[in-house]
């Protein structure tokens, strides 16, 4: 059964629907922090904030690699073949990237003031 792009987005929306209020809150807080950083001139240390966000991404990536199977009731021993391992690495990469994006505005604000 084929899924269109819009179908996939619709499914993702439904999967995330219980988390939407939290995600919107995080987005609003991040945007506010980013605006605050810009107002205080803290964006000059962009590269340092980006490096710190990258560290967050790597840490979360590694945590997800270790924890994701366990959190889903499975074990690493149950992962079978390229499909499962690629899916795990892709999930870890995606969640790591999202964590970095979320962490960047507060890091920008903190490092910009230092």
């Amino acid at each position, binding site marked *: *059964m*084929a*899924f*269109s792009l*819009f*179908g996939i*987005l*619709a*499914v*993702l*929306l*439904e*999967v*995330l*629907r219980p988390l939407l209020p939290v995600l919107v809150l995080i987005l609003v807080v991040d945007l506010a922090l980013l605006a605050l950083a810009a107002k205080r001139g803290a964006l000059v240390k962009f590269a340092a904030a980006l490096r710190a966000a990258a560290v967050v991404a790597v840490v979360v990536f590694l945590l997800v690699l270790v924890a994701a*199977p366990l959190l*889903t*009731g*499975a*074990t690493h021993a*149950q*992962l*079978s*073949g390229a*499909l*499962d391992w690629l*899916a*795990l690495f892709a999930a870890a990469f995606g969640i790591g990237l999202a964590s970095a994006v979320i962490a960047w505005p507060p890091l920008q604000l903190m490092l910009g003031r230092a």
Partner: protein
Amino acid sequence: MASGALLGGGSAYAVRSNARIVIVGAGAAGVSLANRLVRAVEGARITIIDRREEHFYQPGLTLVATGLWRPERVVGHNTDFLPRGVEWVKARVAEFDPEANTVVTDDGQRIGYDYLLVATGLKIDFAAIEGMSPGLIGREGVGCVYDNPDHASRTWQAISAYAAKGGVGVFTRAPGGLKCAGAPLKVAMLVEDQMRREGRRDSAQFIYTAHNDGLFSQPDVNGFLKENFPERGIAIQWHHRMTGIEPEAKRATFATPDGPVRIDYDFIHVVPPMRAPDPLFNSPLANIGAQTPEDRKWLEVDRHTLRHPRYPNVFGAGDCCGTPIGKTAATVKAHVPVIVQNLVRLLQERECDARFNGYTSCPLITVRGRALLVEFDYDLKMIPSFAFIDPLQQHWVPWILKDRMLHGAYNAMLRGRI
């Protein structure tokens, strides 16, 4: 273009009509039909008839019955999914009168229609097994995953008690069309996996009673299971059809080619025969001219257009349909666009051209953390949605799909988005 139509992948308002369209049943098929129709047909009077306000995510019942999900996770509310512009009659259809284009509800309302979409779901026929009743579930070692979260929760109670003590576990499968025909297999495999993980596997004897000489209709999956079950120490009794239960004695009776056989059990998963609900079963809409008693139990529809052959303004969707395979939510997902397109074509006085290919799907959980993603059609040919997933390899990814993603896909289907 309206956003709804954009997300639904169809055109905004395919047709204008003042037709009266009645949907019987607010389960997966009925709600999904309602959502698609309000976007596809402008001006029609759409009515949905069902007393139930709760909406059960039935694909999750296997996970509730085996202790992997809490029952609250499968309970929603139809008010969250039914669209504006649809009249909801909170009653149950007691009689179908297709000659008069009317349905009669149990509170006496006569509701006329120009087009009728039958999506009643099915009836679990507990009475077909002598001594069996829904009240037994959760007592005397009796489980039954089907129908609602209460049955599934009580089944988990019985399974927990069995897993702690061990003994003989009997897992049955009725003949004929079944809702999620993979569920009896999944329950057997998940209980076996649970006892193995808890280190009590040696205290239990597992027996799976097949109604014929196969475990699954799709031949490749059947072959996989015929190897997998013996490897796990699950004994298979072929051609065993459960006919009775003596709960106090913990004994079940089976009809076999060699005569009745009694099996003593400590836990039994009872899978009764299923059929269309009584008002539909007893109506002219049932397949009354069918050659086999099995076919007579269901709504008569053309297997491709899903249109009633004798009452051309009637369509069937979901479990109540007398199609050869597929009483699953995945089948509903495939049914609904076909019916909506064919109904729109009828409203435009054109031929029905959408065809259902028999698509059904089963994420067949083999152990906690692994599953097969099985998808096939009327020809029993595998038609995988994701070419990179081998349907005969146990993987973590199908388990994740079942555990984390498919409820979202189901809700998107209810909203008519996929």
